[in-house]
C-alpha cells in the first residue's frame, strides 16, 4: 500500500502537467446545453478562429443559465449566446430591463455587455396541427377562445411559469377543456398523431420548418421578447477588438427566425454535426471530416476523463485512508467524521459542481475538487470498517510483542485491513468514472462532454459515444484493481481467503 499510492499519484500528475501548459492568448466560448446554444456558440468560435487573434477554447454544453452566466461573470469563458428575456428575468431579476440598451447599462458594472440582437426571437409560442387550423380557421391565439373543447399538452416548465400557460390563459381569457403535462420531446408526436390539438413550442424549433404544424400569432403581445444576443466580457472586447468586430459583422442581424429554425432542423432532424452546420452558415468548408474529428475528440476526452478520475481518486486515497484511521482510533470523532463525509455524498452532484463555480470558476479544478469529495466516502468507510473489525486478540498480542502505535499500524493493522481498504478504493474509482461524466456541465471535459451534447441534440449516437467509453473505462479500472490487489494484498491473506476455514 505504501509503495503503490505515490506511483498512482505520480502517474496522474505526469498527465496533468502537459495538459495544463497552454498559451496565454485564449478566448473561451461557452454555450448552454441545447441545440440552438451549441450552434450559435460554434458559429462564434469559427468566426473567432478565422479572425485568428487568439486560440479558441470551446466550453460548450455547460449546464443551465445559472452555471453558464457564472462562468462568464467569473471569466472562465469570454462569451456565450443568451436571450434578452432570460437576461432581464432570470439574471438581472428586473422584468422591465428588456431593451438592449437597458440591459447593457445594467451589465456594465459586472464587466459584461451584450451585442445587438442577432436577428431572431426564441420565445414560447403555441402550435396546432395544420389540418385542424385550416378546418377551424385558427390563425391567432385569440381564435382559441371559440374552441374550448380542444385538448392541449404543455411541457412542465410552460405549464407552471408565469410567462407560460397561467399568464397566457388570463391574458387571453382562454378556457381549454383538457390541459395536461407532456415531455417536450414527445409533444410533436402527440400532435401529429392527433391525440392532442395544441402544444407549446419554441419559435425557432427546427420542426417548424416541416409541414404539418402552424404557429398561432401572439396577437395580444403576451409572450416577452427573447431576442438572441451574444453576452460577452468587456475585457474581451478591449483586448481583441478585431475579433469582436468580426463577431458582430458575421452574426448581428444576420440570423432571422427562419434561418435559425433551419439551422436547428439541420442539427436536430437531419443529424448533421454542429460544426458542419455552423460552417455551412458561414459559407466555409467544414474543417476535417467528422470521423477523424470524433476520433481525435474521443482521444482528448479519454485523457481528460482519466486525469479527472486518477487525480480525484488518488488524492481521495491519500486523504481518505488517514481519515479512516482517525475514525477507527477515536470513537466520537470518528462518528462525527463519518457523518460529515456521508453528508457530502447527499449533496446532489450537479449542485456541488454549481457551488464550486464562485470559488474556483469552471473547468478542471472545480471538477476535481467535487469529484475528490465524492470519492472520499467509500475509502474512508472501507478503511474504518477494515480496521474496526480486526481480530482484537491479534492486536492485543502485538502490544505484548512490543509493537505499539505506528509500528502496530504499519506492520499489523494496515496489512490485515488491506483487502477492505483496496475494495474501498476500487469502489471509489469505479463510481468516479461515472460521476466524472457530470464534470462536463461545468466545462471539466471528459466523456460527459459527448453525453451532454447528445442529450441536447437528442442524438443517441453521440450519447453512446460518451457513455460506452465511460463504461469500458469502468471495466478497465476494475481489471486494473484486480492486479493492484495481487501486488498489495499480502500473499498470506489471499491464501487465507482462498481456503475458508
Amino acid at each position, binding site marked *: 500500500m505504501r509503495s503503490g499510492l505515490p506511483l498512482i499519484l505520480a502517474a496522474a500528475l505526469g498527465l496533468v502537467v502537459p495538459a495544463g501548459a497552454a498559451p496565454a492568448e485564449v478566448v473561451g466560448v461557452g454555450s448552454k446545453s441545447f441545440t440552438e446554444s451549441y450552434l450559435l456558440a460554434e458559429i462564434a468560435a469559427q468566426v473567432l478562429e478565422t479572425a485568428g487573434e487568439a486560440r479558441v477554447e470551446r466550453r460548450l454544453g455547460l449546464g443551465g443559465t445559472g452555471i453558464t452566466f457564472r462562468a462568464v461573470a467569473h471569466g472562465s469563458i469570454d462569451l456565450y449566446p443568451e436571450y434578452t428575456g432570460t437576461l432581464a428575468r432570470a439574471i438581472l431579476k428586473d422584468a422591465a430591463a428588456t431593451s438592449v440598451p437597458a440591459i447593457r447599462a445594467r451589465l456594465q458594472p459586472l464587466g459584461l455587455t451584450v451585442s445587438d440582437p442577432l436577428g431572431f426571437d426564441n420565445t414560447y409560442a403555441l402550435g396546432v396541427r395544420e389540418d385542424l387550423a385550416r378546418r377551424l380557421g385558427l390563425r391567432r391565439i385569440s381564435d382559441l377562445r371559440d374552441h374550448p373543447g380542444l385538448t392541449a399538452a404543455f411541457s412542465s416548465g410552460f405549464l407552471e411559469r408565469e410567462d407560460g400557460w397561467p399568464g397566457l390563459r388570463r391574458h387571453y381569457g382562454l378556457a381549454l377543456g383538457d390541459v395536461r403535462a407532456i415531455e417536450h420531446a414527445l409533444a410533436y408526436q402527440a400532435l401529429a398523431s392527433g391525440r392532442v390539438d395544441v402544444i407549446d413550442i419554441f419559435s425557432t424549433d427546427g420542426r417548424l420548418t416541416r409541414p404539418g404544424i402552424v404557429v398561432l400569432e401572439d396577437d395580444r403581445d403576451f409572450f416577452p421578447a427573447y431576442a438572441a444576443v451574444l453576452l460577452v466580457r468587456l475585457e474581451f472586447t478591449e483586448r481583441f477588438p478585431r475579433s469582436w468586430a468580426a463577431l458582430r459583422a458575421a452574426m448581428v442581424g444576420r440570423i432571422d427566425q427562419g434561418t435559425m429554425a433551419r439551422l436547428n432542423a439541420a442539427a436536430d432532424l437531419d443529424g448533421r454535426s454542429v460544426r458542419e452546420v455552423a460552417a455551412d452558415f458561414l459559407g466555409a468548408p467544414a474543417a476535417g471530416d467528422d470521423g477523424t474529428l470524433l476520433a481525435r475528440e474521443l482521444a482528448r476526452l479519454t485523457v481528460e476523463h482519466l486525469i479527472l478520475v486518477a487525480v480525484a481518486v488518488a488524492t481521495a486515497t491519500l486523504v481518505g485512508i488517514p481519515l479512516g484511521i482517525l475514525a477507527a482510533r477515536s470513537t466520537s470523532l470518528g462518528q462525527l467524521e463519518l457523518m460529515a463525509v456521508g453528508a457530502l455524498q447527499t449533496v446532489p452532484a450537479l449542485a456541488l459542481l454549481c457551488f464550486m463555480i464562485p470559488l474556483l470558476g469552471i473547468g478542471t479544478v472545480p471538477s476535481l475538487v467535487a469529484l475528490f469529495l465524492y470519492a472520499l466516502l467509500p475509502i474512508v468507510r472501507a478503511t474504518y470498517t477494515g480496521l474496526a473489525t480486526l481480530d482484537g486478540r491479534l492486536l*492485543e498480542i502485538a502490544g505484548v510483542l*512490543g509493537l505499539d502505535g505506528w509500528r502496530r499500524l504499519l506492520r499489523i493493522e494496515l496489512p490485515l485491513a488491506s483487502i477492505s481498504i483496496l475494495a474501498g478504493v476500487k469502489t471509489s474509482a469505479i463510481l468516479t468514472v461515472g460521476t466524472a461524466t457530470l464534470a462536463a456541465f461545468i466545462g471539466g471535459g471528459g466523456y460527459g462532454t459527448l453525453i451532454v451534447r447528445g442529450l441536447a441534440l437528442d442524438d443517441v449516437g453521440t450519447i453512446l459515444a460518451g457513455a460506452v467509453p465511460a463504461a469500458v473505462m469502468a471495466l478497465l479500472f476494475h481489471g486494473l484493481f484486480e492486479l493492484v490487489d495481487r501486488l498489495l494484498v499480502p500473499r498470506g491473506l489471499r*491464501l487465507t481467503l482462498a481456503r475458508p476455514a
Partner: protein
Amino acid sequence: MIAVLRATKRYGAITALEDVSLEARRGTTHVLLGSSGSGKSTLLRAILGLVPLDAGDVVVDGLPVTPASRRRLVGQVGYVVQEGGLYPHLTARDNVALPADAVGWPRPRTAERLDALTALVGLDEGALGRYPSQLSGGQRQRVGLMRALVLDPPLLLLDEPLAALDPIVRADLQGELRRLFAALGKTVLLVTHDVREAVLLGATITLLHRGRVVQQGAFADLARRPAQPFVSEFLGAQAPPPELRELL
C-alpha cells in the same frame, strides 16, 4: 516471579475475578485450572497489563504491572495463545522474528536465534517459509511457542495453548512442553481446562470457579484433600470412565 494480590475485576454486573491471589515461583510451572468462564484468561490478561483491575495488584519481578506500565514486560514475558495467535499476512519466519524486529535485533542475530528455536521446538525447516494457513495445527502451535521464546524471556504465559488440537497431537505436545519447561527453567503460568495437562505440567495448581479461587496446591493436595466438593467433582469429570480404565 509472578504474584497476584487480591485481584478483582467486574464487567458490569458480571464478576470475572473476585479477590484472587496467587504466586508462581521462579523456575516452576503454575497451572490456572478451570472451566470456561472461570476467569482464568482474564487473570492472565490482567497479568500482562492488558486488562485494568478494579482492585488488587499484579507484581512481576517485584514491580507492579498496570496497563500504563505494561511496556516494561516486553522481552520479559513470552505469550502463547490458542492456535498460536499468528498473523495471517506474515510467514512463520516473519511471525517469529516480529519481537526481535521490534527491539531492533540485527538480522544475523535473529537468524541464529531462529535456527536454535527451530531445533528446540522440533519444527521442520520447510515450515518457516510458509504462511499460517498452510501449517498444521501442531505446527502453528510450535511457531507460536517459538515467537514467545525469541527474546528468551524469563517468564512464559500460555493461554489454552493446546486446546484446538486433536487428542494425539495434544498428548504429544504436552509431553514436549513438559520436557521444554524442564530444560529451559523458566517461570511458567499456564491456563487450561484440561486436568491431564495440569497434572502433567503443573508443579502447583490454582483451581478457579466463577472468578474465585477454590483451592491452590500440588495436584496430590487437590485430589486427596479437596477444599470443597467442587474440587472432586471437577477433577472426576475428566477422569476416564472405569470401563476405559480397565481396558487400558
